[in-house]
């Protein structure tokens, strides 16, 4: 019995980590460029094209306005198209990523916004191109904030991945609902909660270490 529980929890933990890691990765892959685009098009000293950045902001806000559980259902056709199925861990990565991209984009935008205009000016005066400003100033100077933003995003995704259990995604949330709630298995419920607490703690800790390493 306990061996079964251990095996179930181990499997579900791996599935959760898989979902969180994959969707966090996608969130940075698409969210960061979107954030840079929003910042760079708004600044008069870089691209000064607010007609491009602003609509991106609207789309981001629109997606963020939809509760995740509804987004899951709404995105089923999209998930089928991308993943070939709407069930399982791999399929859950699609809606998780789509929810995480705008979330991370806004968080990254805040960090990028904090950068002193003087630093951008310094590189412009050195004869730096706009691309060099992004590469030498925006990204490296905002890096501590970008990393703590990623930590927050990953932790939010741990919670969201539990909801993805509703469409049969697997993972810890799914396990807790099926065994803990529907079958009243209190042991599994508590074990899952304990693992979730450890997982979130580990992500937070790793994030803090990374931020300290780049901040120096």
């Amino acid at each position, binding site marked *: 019995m306990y061996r079964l529980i251990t095996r179930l929890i181990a499997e579900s933990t791996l599935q959760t980590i898989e979902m969180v890691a994959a969707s966090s990765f996608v969130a940075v892959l698409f969210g960061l460029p979107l954030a840079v685009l929003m910042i760079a098009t708004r600044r008069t000293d870089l691209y000064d094209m607010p007609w491009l950045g602003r609509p991106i902001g609207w789309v981001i806000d629109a997606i963020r306005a939809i509760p995740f559980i509804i987004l899951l259902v709404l995105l089923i056709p999209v998930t089928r198209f991308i993943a070939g199925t709407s069930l399982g861990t791999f399929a859950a990565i699609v809606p998780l990523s789509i929810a995480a991209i705008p979330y991370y984009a806004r968080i990254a935008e805040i960090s990028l916004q904090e950068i*002193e205009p003087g*630093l951008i*000016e*310094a590189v412009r005066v*050195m*004869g*730096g191109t706009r691309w060099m400003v992004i590469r*030498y100033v925006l990204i490296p*100077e905002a*890096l501590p904030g970008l990393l703590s933003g990623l930590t927050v995003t990953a932790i939010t995704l741990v919670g969201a991945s539990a909801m993805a259990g509703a469409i049969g995604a697997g993972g810890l949330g799914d396990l807790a609902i099926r065994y803990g709630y529907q079958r009243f298995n209190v042991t599994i419920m508590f074990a899952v909660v304990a693992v979730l607490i450890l997982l979130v703690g580990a992500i937070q800790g790793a994030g803090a270490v990374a931020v300290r390493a780049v901040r120096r």
Partner: protein
Amino acid sequence: MSLLDVSGLSCRFGSQTALSDISFQVDKGEIIGVIGSSGAGKSTLLRCLCALERPTEGQILLEGADLTQLTERELVAARRKVGLVFQHFNLLNSRSVAANIALPLEIAGWAGGRITERVEELLTLVGLESHGYKRPSQLSGGQKQRVGIARAIANSPSLLLCDEATSALDPHTTTSILDLLVDINRSLGLTIILITHEMEVVRRFAHRVLVLDHGALIENGSMATLMRDSRGDPRLERLLADTRPSLPDTLRSQLSTVPLPDGLTLVRVVLGPQAAKTPFLSVLTRRFDQAITLIQGGTLACGSELLTDMILGFSEPLSEPLISFLEQETHVTEVLGYVPADH
């Protein structure tokens, strides 16, 4: 041909005029002080000179190339000929001191080995040999500004602009930073434009002074010229007030515009470099049989020359021959007024 030739420069933002019809020239190796109170147009002029701002009208010729006509792509290259030192340093905290100095070289596409060599050389030049590995946040204000200067001159610009480079520093550090700039000016023949609101800085280090007031250039000359022209010009007087001898308040309150019986005649006298080493007061006393007191002042270094700026108290009202002697021998003679003698 001069290094920098600005003519008819005007800059307007909407209905607001930031600069109107500014013209001046700068020769290679000069140190120019640009001074004005806040809102006089100093920052706009600076932004135009380093091609961050396009003026509404006029020309800026830097080594023959007109900065106002270049395309964005050409400007990127033109800006590499201008170094800029900032008031708040603007160093990247994500990079070490050495990597901050290397940045303009990376941008200009230098090879890695040459960059390391050049950065070493620059660190030595600004006196930070052993600090290359540190982060800017570990340095003091003065050290940060040294890094700022090293970064600004890394790519051997033909013009170095200093934007209030010492305004965030204490007086002692200010002096050491300005000494460094003068050193660089002498050893590399680098042309420097100091933009500041501190007259003291301009007085000590600039060969020539440009005064901006409400967007207009109202003075362009040496410190001695500025002192001469300031007579009766409240805009210039206000700027000079911080750095010149002035009457103590008790004397100022007793000041009268008509001569008083056995009172003192107060006269401001500015003497050129040659007078600093002659016994001027003794000559006056002997030739005109006057008792003279020095109320305030003395000899000051102005750029590369010495100027003597004093307020003197004469025991007798000024006679015709004395006035004509003063007019001849001094840069400026200005009767400030008369005060009663104490009994």
